[in-house]
């Protein structure tokens, strides 16, 4: 499937400074996103997946230095001023977070928060805004939407709050949704509902989605394409099915194998040896080399580039593995 590219991230790097030390949280990340495409950004805590997402919308620049380009519909929004960014945020690109309670204003009713977005980003009149707000709540599956418009966030359950957040995020019909672990705090039954909702809306509005998650199951069930991050870099990128059935980077392989599925019950699970490096103490060469079963002298010397292995597939590894060839790590 070919889609027009709506977002192109080029050589994005975000560096924080803590206690006088430079912390490269995101290192030279590049990827593209097509119209209506769902891209998964996967990794463990500290891999830089959330920071990447925040950097796209310029939310990281207050905390650190962001370099590189974020081309959104042809213009570089990374270089936009805060003011100019405001017209992009919420209107063209929306974002939802893991904890809806902390991103909803507890003192304003849900209706006020919804109409506020509409007022800022659309030309709708007062009564039209209200009608659209009810429509949005209804659309995200909140029962008796009109009656709940005057409720406060704390009057909603966790799953309903996440729906409210999605309704607010999507009120202005953005073309790109950035979702940061939107279902991590929810139960599986609610998670399934919310993911269905996001996917349905993405399809309906032809909206691109970048979904940050640590859950490979969520990735398998929602994403078209996946980028795996480790220590601030994308180490592998591929369409979802081949990535999960035939991971090429040893780290992706390790992640896959540590999920308890298809393993005899109560036997030892695979786990990648060691721990991720601290960002201010990255090893020379490939950041994964110290934990990698197939690391060589080359790996500890030079950091591999993200190389194209096959159409649509790339991996940053000197010695990509392959299950298909049967030389699993």
């Amino acid at each position, binding site marked *: 499937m070919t889609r027009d590219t709506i977002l192109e991230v080029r050589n994005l790097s975000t560096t*924080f400074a*803590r*206690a006088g*030390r430079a*912390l490269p*949280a995101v290192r030279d990340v590049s990827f593209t996103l097509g119209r209506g495409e769902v891209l998964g950004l996967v990794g463990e*805590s*500290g*891999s*830089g*997946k*959330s*920071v990447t997402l*925040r950097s796209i919308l310029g939310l*990281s620049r207050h*905390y650190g230095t962001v370099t590189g380009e974020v081309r959104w519909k042809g213009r570089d929004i990374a270089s936009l001023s805060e003011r100019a960014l405001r017209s992009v945020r919420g209107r063209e690109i929306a974002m939802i977070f893991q904890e809806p309670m902390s991103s909803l204003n507890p003192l304003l009713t849900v209706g006020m928060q919804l109409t506020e977005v509409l007022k800022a980003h659309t030309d709708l009149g007062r009564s039209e805004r209200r009608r659209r707000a009810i429509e949005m709540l209804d659309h995200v599956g909140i029962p008796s939407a009109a009656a709940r418009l005057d409720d406060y966030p704390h009057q909603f359950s966790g799953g309903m709050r996440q729906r409210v957040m999605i309704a607010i995020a999507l009120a202005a019909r953005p073309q790109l949704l950035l979702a940061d672990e939107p279902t991590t705090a929810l139960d599986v039954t609610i998670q399934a509902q919310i993911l269905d909702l996001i996917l349905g809306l993405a399809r309906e509005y032809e909206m691109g989605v970048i979904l940050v998650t640590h859950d490979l199951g969520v990735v398998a069930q929602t994403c078209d394409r996946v980028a795996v991050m480790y220590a601030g870099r994308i180490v592998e990128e591929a369409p979802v099915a081949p990535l999960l059935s035939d991971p090429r980077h040893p780290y992706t392989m390790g992640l896959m194998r540590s999920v308890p599925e298809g393993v005899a019950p109560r036997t030892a699970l695979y786990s990648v040896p060691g721990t*991720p*490096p*601290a*960002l*201010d*103490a990255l090893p020379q060469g490939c950041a994964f080399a110290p934990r990698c079963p197939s690391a060589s002298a080359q790996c500890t010397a030079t950091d591999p580039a993200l190389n194209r292995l096959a159409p649509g597939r790339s991996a940053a590894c000197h010695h990509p593995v392959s299950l298909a060839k049967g030389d699993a790590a």
Partner: protein
Amino acid sequence: MSDVTLSLPKGRSRLALALRRPGFLLGAAIIGLSTLLALFPGLFAPYDPNFIDYTAVGQPPSAAHPFGTDMLGRDALSRVIWAYRINMQMAILATIFALLIGVTVGALVGYYRGVADMIFGRFVDAIITFPFLVLVIAVVAVLGPGLVNMYVAITLVGWVYYARLMRAEVIGQMGNDYAAAGLVMGYSDRRIIFRHLLPNAITPVIVYWMTDMALAILLGSSLGYLGLGAQPPQAEWGVLIAEGRNFLTTAWWLSLMPGIAIVLTGLGFSLLGDAMADLLRPRG
């Protein structure tokens, strides 16, 4: 950002970080010097604070008497220095028992809750509706003026504030699973309260104690000024200010110098308290 791993350099102690803060240094210097003056006033005071010299009455500041002399010819500098002994003693004695009682009661009612906590709550409500000074003066009025009675009065009222703070902190700490873990481990209540909860809950209390010591000096000298605390001829800042009160236009230095001493010491305790908050906070 939770998504960032940070390896803090080892070995850089918190004290070293605190030492770089000018506020902490200044506070520590003031309180250190005040303590020295309180412990060894004889070493610093040029004269006997009670030596009456009728040949030098009400003299303005000079080389011989940097703070001047009072209406009995006593050296004002020496009297301010000797007053450190009383006023620093106030800072400690007027607060330490309130601290100990308050921390214990607060920790107990915060841990056990129940009826004791409800009674405590009502009691606190009753106490804090009255201005602190009014209550203390009432107690002193009953017991009679004097330093010891003043300490008793301040303690009787003051512990409530510590207990209230401690109770709230302990209840907050109870929300952490290490308290539950202690119960599951079968540890005694005493161990959980004093070994686990108290060290984690005490930081704000210690910080409050620092400012309370400054307040105690202020309160003590107020009572001294009113004639309810230290009694003349004892050198105490409140008493000194009171003695100079009638001569403000002719011998302003008599009231001004002890006033400055009160302000300086109070500032020292506040600065120290601020730094303490950072020093005592648990890491991680």
